[in-house]
C-alpha cells in the first residue's frame, strides 16, 4: 500500500493550485471564504473561467468537452477548489442532467443541450421532489399526459434549488399509473418560460431564498423533450445515484470548515486562554479531526476502487452519511466556538459591499446561519436514513 499521491497526481495537484491562484478572482474567493452571498453572476463568472480551461465538466466524455480525469484527480480538484475558496460548481445541469443525457438522451438532445450547459446559456434546475414525495420519491404525482405531439403537465415540484434563476427544469413526471409505482415515471425537459409555470420562493430557516416551489398548470411540453423512453425515468434517475459521486463525502468542504474552526478557536478566549486549549473543546475538535482523517482514507479507498472499474454502490451511501455527520459536527463546534457572538445576525452583512463594521468578531455573522443551513446535508440527496436503508439492503442483504 502507498498512502501518498503518485508523481503524476502531485503534478496535477500543483497544476490545479497554479490555475486557482492565477484564475480564481480574488473578489469571488473572498466572498466564499467570508461566508457571503453569491449572486447568479458570481457563479456564472467562475463557471465561465473553468469552461475556458476545459475543467468545467471533467466527468463528461472527452468528445463532449470532458477531461478524462481519474476519480482521484476529480477528488484532488474538488479539494483544491474548496481550499482556495472557489464557489461550488452547481451540479444541476453539469453533474445531474448531463450524465443522463449522455447515457440515455438522443443525439439531437445531446448536441443541443450539452454545449449550452457548458457555455452557461441554459441554467438548469432539478424537478424531483414534491410536497408528498420527499424521501419516498417514487410516490411523485406530477402528471404528464400525452396529447398528440405534446405532453400536458400538471402538478407541483418543491425544494427546487436556485430555480429562480433557471431557464430549464428536468423533471420526473408520472406518465402511467399501471404496475409498480417506479415503472410509470418519465424524465422530461421543460422550458421554464412555458406558459403555466409559476415559481414561488421558499424562505429557509436562515432567512435565505435558496429553494423554490414550481407549479405546473396545463404546461405544454413537446414530445421530443422526453429523455429516453416513456416510463423509464426511474432507471435514469437511479443511474445518477451511482454516477458522479466522488464528491459525496464533502472532504474539501470539511477540510476548509475545520481550518476555519481552528482559526476561530485560537482567537476566541475562555478563562484567559484560547478556546482551543480548553480540554473539553480541544477533545471535541480532535475527535472530529481524527474522524475526518480516517474519512479521507476511506474516501480515497473508494475512489481507488472506482478507478479500477468498480462502480461505488453502497460505498457512496457510507461516504454520504459519515461525510455529512462530520461536516455537521464541525458546523456545530464552530457555532459553539463563538459563544454569545453566535447570536447576532445581520442579513444585509452577507451581501458583497456591506460597509458597516461587524458586530463582534468579523467572522461571526454567517456562522450560526451556516450551521442551520447545513442541517440540510443529512436530509437531502437521499436522507441519511434512506442511505442506511440502501446499505442494509445491498451490504447486509436485509
Amino acid at each position, binding site marked *: 500500500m502507498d498512502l501518498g499521491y503518485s508523481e503524476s497526481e502531485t503534478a496535477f495537484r500543483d497544476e490545479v493550485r497554479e490555475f486557482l491562484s492565477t484564475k480564481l478572482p480574488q473578489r469571488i474567493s473572498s466572498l466564499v471564504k467570508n461566508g457571503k452571498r453569491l449572486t447568479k453572476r458570481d457563479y456564472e463568472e467562475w463557471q465561465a473561467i473553468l469552461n475556458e480551461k476545459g475543467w468545467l465538466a471533467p466527468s463528461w466524455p472527452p468528445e463532449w468537452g470532458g477531461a478524462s480525469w481519474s476519480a482521484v484527480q476529480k477528488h484532488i480538484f474538488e479539494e483544491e477548489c474548496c481550499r482556495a475558496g472557489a464557489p461550488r460548481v452547481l451540479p444541476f445541469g453539469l453533474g445531474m442532467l448531463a450524465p443522463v443525457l449522455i447515457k440515455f438522451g438522443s443525439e439531437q438532445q445531446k448536441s443541443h443541450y450539452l454545449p449550452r450547459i457548458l457555455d452557461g446559456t441554459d441554467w438548469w434546475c432539478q424537478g424531483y421532489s414534491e410536497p408528498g414525495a420527499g424521501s419516498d420519491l417514487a410516490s411523485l404525482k406530477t402528471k404528464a399526459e400525452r396529447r398528440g405531439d405534446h405532453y400536458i403537465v400538471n402538478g407541483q415540484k418543491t425544494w427546487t434549488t436556485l430555480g429562480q434563476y433557471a431557464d430549464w427544469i428536468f423533471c420526473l413526471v408520472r406518465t402511467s399509473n399501471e404496475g409498480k409505482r417506479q415503472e410509470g415515471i418519465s424524465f422530461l425537459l421543460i422550458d421554464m418560460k412555458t406558459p403555466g409555470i409559476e415559481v414561488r420562493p421558499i424562505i429557509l430557516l436562515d432567512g435565505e431564498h435558496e429553494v423554490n416551489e414550481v407549479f405546473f398548470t396545463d404546461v405544454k411540453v413537446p414530445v421530443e423533450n422526453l429523455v429516453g423512453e416513456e416510463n423509464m425515468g426511474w432507471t435514469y434517475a437511479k443511474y445518477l445515484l451511482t454516477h458522479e459521486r466522488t464528491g459525496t463525502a464533502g472532504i474539501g468542504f470539511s477540510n476548509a470548515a475545520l481550518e476555519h474552526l481552528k482559526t476561530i478557536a485560537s482567537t476566541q478566549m475562555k478563562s484567559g486562554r484560547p478556546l482551543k486549549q480548553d480540554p473539553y473543546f*480541544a477533545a471535541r475538535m480532535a475527535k472530529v479531526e481524527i*474522524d475526518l482523517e*480516517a474519512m479521507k482514507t*476511506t474516501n480515497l479507498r473508494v475512489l*481507488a476502487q472506482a478507478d479500477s472499474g468498480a462502480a461505488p454502490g453502497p460505498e457512496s451511501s*457510507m461516504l454520504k452519511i459519515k461525510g455529512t455527520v462530520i461536516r455537521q459536527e464541525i458546523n456545530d463546534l464552530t457555532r459553539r466556538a463563538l459563544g454569545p457572538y453566535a447570536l447576532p445576525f445581520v442579513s444585509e452583512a452577507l451581501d458583497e459591499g456591506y460597509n458597516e463594521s461587524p458586530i463582534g468578531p468579523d467572522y461571526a455573522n454567517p456562522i450560526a446561519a451556516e450551521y442551520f443551513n447545513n442541517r440540510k446535508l443529512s436530509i437531502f440527496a437521499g436522507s441519511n436514513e434512506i442511505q442506511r436503508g440502501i446499505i442494509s439492503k445491498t*451490504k447486509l442483504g436485509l
Partner: protein
Amino acid sequence: MDFDLNEDRRMLRDTLEKFLRERYPIEKRLEYSKSEQGYSTKMWQEFADLGIIGALFDEEAGGFGGQGDDLMVVFEQLGRALVVEPFLSTGILSGTILSAIGSDLTADVISGQTQVSLAHSEPASRYDLAHVTTSAEQQGEAWIINGQKSVVLGAASADKLLVSARTSGTTEDEDGITLFLVEPIASGVEMRAYSTIDGYGAADIMLTNTPAKPLGEINQALPLIELAHARAIVAVCSQCLGACEVAKDMTVEYMHTRKQFGVIIGKFQVLQHRMADVLIELEQMRSSIINAAGFLDDHRDLREKHCSAAKNLTGRAGRQIAEEAIQIHGGIAMTWEASVSHYAKHIIMIDHLFGDTDHHLERYIELG
C-alpha cells in the same frame, strides 16, 4: 496512491487465513486459552514454521516483512480467530526492541524457540510510557533490579523477561530508563500469573534484588519502548479490526435467521440502521489503521500522531461494534457458549492495551 496489498502480502494473508480456518476453530481457541499454559506451544511452533512470526520482522533482522502492512495483514487474521499465542508480547513488543538493538535473541524469537516478554507498565503508570519507578542499581559489574511490573502480557510462558527500570532521574523523566534482560527463574522474581478476562495470559511481577543484564543504551530506552508500542498499536488495532469483522458477520447472520414476532429480526429498521452504522465505523477503523501503518516508519511525531488517532478511533468504533453485537444477539450473547461473546470481550478489552481512547485523544492533542 495504492491501497492494494502486494503479491507477497496477499499470499501471507491467504496462507494464514486458510491455516486458521482449518486449525484454529473457536473450540480449540477456548481450549488453548483455558490450558495450563494459556496457549498452545504446538500451535506456536507451527505458526513459526509457517513464517508468521518472521513476517513481523524485516530482512535485516532475519525476517521477511516487518512493515506496517505486514503487521496489519497478520494481526487482522489473528484477530479473526482470537489467537492466544504470544504474538503481541514476543513478536511485536519484545521483537521490535530486540531487533532494533541487534540482539542475538531475535533469531530465536523468529524460529519460535524463545519467548521474550516486555515487562514495562507498573501499577501506577497507567498508560504513561515514561512513568517508571522500578529501579536498577549497578553493584560492581552486576546489576540488580527492584520494583513491580503489572499486567505483563505473555509473562508466564516467557523464557526471558525484558524489564524496563530507572537508572537515573525521577519517576516520569523521559531520560534515565534502561532495558534489562531478566531470567524468570532468577532470584527475587515473584510472578503472579493469570488469564485476562478475554482469555490471554499475563502476570504481575515483583522483582526484589533480582540480577539483570542491561540491553541497549543505558538511560536511553524510552524511544525504543515508544517505537515498540507504536508497532503494538498498529498490531492490536488490526487484531481488533479482524475481531470486529467477525462479530459483525455473526450479527448479520443472526439478523437473517433469528425470528421474533413472526419475522427475521433483520426486518426491523431500527436494527438495520444500527448495523449500517457498524459497517461505516468498521471502514473508518480500517482507514485509521491504514494511516497508522503507513506512517510507522515516518518520523516520531507523525508516527505517534497517527497511532494515537488509530487507537482512539478503534477504541470508539470497537466499543460500538461489540456492544451492538451483544445487543442485537440479545440474551444468547450473554452466554459463554455463544462465540460472539468472546469476540466482544476481546474487542472491548483491547481498549485497555497501550492507551485507551481518552489517553490517545489527549495525546493526539498534545502532539499538535
